[in-house]
């Protein structure tokens, strides 16, 4: 993949007797959001620390925007916006002062830094509180400032290490929307989380990490396919349900169709992809569909399948 913004190859890191990272490799392209999904202690933060040049790996290599990353790299670090898991802000400085300090640290000239600070304050929704000390902010506002610092220098790769831990639902949603918007603007995003819903919502591809190893990676559908399960779709409605079931059974993606308790029950390969076709087929067969239910294997099931344990164990 030549347009990779981030390329990690065979990363290994040991702390004493603990092999924190054991041969992890992955790539992220521009505009792609890649999720590292795994329980606490899986090796996500250590991987992030190596990617950001905070730790030297025992083995393996990291390239960011074509530049090799080490703890002394300049070019590679300049291409990354790092948002650590814990709040890393100065509470006794205002949001604007926090942002200005890090902007200057990233080499943004003073005049440009002022403009950029104002822009970022807008982006993270703190424009009206930019001159207040960060210690007066709510937890969610601090989180947004924490993320804002990572955006200052318009990085090619944004690294977010569990950015929503301990955040209220409203702020969490705002953070997820911001990430979606940034990715939409072409920024590559490396996102670690142990929240399955976040990974499913945000990530184009997901790497499942456990005990320092990348167990599997791919799109959500690819990962779900690893489990080998099929989705179940229930079409509730009135009309000729038997005819509807029979018509749907003719579709290639449908594995089984039956009528039960006033509804058509279908077993399909990928419910999200064929749902529209199912509805059209049922309607054409004389069924007025009044409700739809879908049960599909999620990443939790994938994780269970791959590691033999639940994601939050």
């Amino acid at each position: 993949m030549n347009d990779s913004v981030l390329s990690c190859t065979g990363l290994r890191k040991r702390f004493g007797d603990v092999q924190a990272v054991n041969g992890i490799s992955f790539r992220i392209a521009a505009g792609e959001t890649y999720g590292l999904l795994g329980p606490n202690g899986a090796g996500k933060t250590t991987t992030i620390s190596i990617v950001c040049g905070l730790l030297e790996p025992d083995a393996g290599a990291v390239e960011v925007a074509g530049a090799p990353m080490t703890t002394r790299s300049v070019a590679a670090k300049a291409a990354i916006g790092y948002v650590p898991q814990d709040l890393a802000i100065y509470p006794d400085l205002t949001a604007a002062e926090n942002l200005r300090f890090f902007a200057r640290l990233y080499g943004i000239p003073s005049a440009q830094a002022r403009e950029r600070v104002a822009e970022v304050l807008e982006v993270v929704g703190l424009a009206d509180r930019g001159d207040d000390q960060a210690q007066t902010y709510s937890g969610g506002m601090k989180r947004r400032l924490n993320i804002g610092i990572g955006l200052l220098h318009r990085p090619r790769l944004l690294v977010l290490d569990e950015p929503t831990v301990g955040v209220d639902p409203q702020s969490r949603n705002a953070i997820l929307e911001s990430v979606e918007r940034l990715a939409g603007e072409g920024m590559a995003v490396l996102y670690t989380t142990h929240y399955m819903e976040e990974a499913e919502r945000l990530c184009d591809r997901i790497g499942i990490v456990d005990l320092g190893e990348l167990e599997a990676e791919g799109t959500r559908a690819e990962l779900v396919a690893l489990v080998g399960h099929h989705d179940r779709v229930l079409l509730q409605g009135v009309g000729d349900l038997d005819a509807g079931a029979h018509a749907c059974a003719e579709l290639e993606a449908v594995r089984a169709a039956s009528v039960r308790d006033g509804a058509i029950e279908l077993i399909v390969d990928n419910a999200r992809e064929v749902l529209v076709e199912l509805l059209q087929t049922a309607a054409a067969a004389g069924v007025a569909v009044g409700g739809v239910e879908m049960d599909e294997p999620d990443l939790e099931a994938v994780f269970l399948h791959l590691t033999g344990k639940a994601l939050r164990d």
Partner: protein
Amino acid sequence: MHTALLIAGKDLRQRIRDRSAILLAFVVPFVLAAIFGLTLHDVGNGTVTFSFALVDQDHGPAARAFVANVLAPVEKQGLAHVRTEPTLAQGRKDADSGKVAATFVIPAGFSAAVASGGPAEVRVLGNVDEGIGSLVAHSLAQSYAGGVDGVRVAVAATGPQNPADARRLAALAGAAPRAVTIADVSTTRKELDPGTFYAAGMAVFFLFFTVQFGVVSILDERRDGTLARMFAAPIPRSAVLVGKLLTSVVLGIVSMTVLAFATHFVLGAHWGSPLGVAILIVCGVLAATAVMALVATLAKTPEQAGAWGSMVALVLAMLGGSFFSVAQAGGVIAALSLLTPHAWFLRGLGDLAGGAGAGAVLGPAAAILAFAVVTGGIALTRMGRLIEP
């Protein structure tokens, strides 16, 4: 260097907002210097006048000798004012009410007891709130008792005599000039007046706390995650260290300079040649920064560094004579005090107080720098662990 300045600028902004730092760097040392200096300032300048009372129930030659040889000279020098009270009750009332610092009571039969070699005593009734005045009164009485003992020894040494010979000999011995007198042990030109001594002593003592806000804050930043964030930026890690050291040095120099000016203009402290003082301040700040950097490299947490730094600052200040002169202690303590920057700082100021030019502080400054080099050198060998996220 630009990055280091940026970090130092951010740190200084934080320190300015941190009222505890302002208190520790400026207010507390100034207030303590003012308290110590003003309390002892008049004594050191010889301008204080103690009030004493005398109750003479004896009226004999020994009592008259006490008044003439002990009390009269101190009155003449303006150090004391002595009022005579007719009764013990009145003398006690004077002392109890604070009208006088102490009352000397010469009991009836005192002269006879002195002449016969029997037990004799001058009583001192001190006012509890006039500790220094009472001590002075005790010292005066003690000096007279010492003189009486000397006469007795002289008389005894001549062997058995008749009473008339003994009285004559005693009179001669008492009137003779003292063979040995105690002169001021320090040379006048190296003695700091109390106001200056405490201004400088407190300033250099608190300097060690002030510089902590710079170099030790690297541990705060590691705990708070901002150090990792800085290390993720495209800057050399050493710039963070240099920035922190720079913060310490700037804080130290500003705090010492402000205190020097404030104590000079407000408390009347005489620091001496500005250039000499500046040399001493810079060297002192470097030494304080170096030793606190060493403490930071040994500690695992900011709290630990703060506690250890306070202990080191206190021990060095005690040993170095920030609170009281340890040179008088002599022996090992006096020798050990020369291992502290405090002692050399005060010694350098003493040279300046004597009217010497800035060149006079080069020796003390070199000693302080040597301390900085040794402690800073050890710190440098351990600083790698400070720049790990």
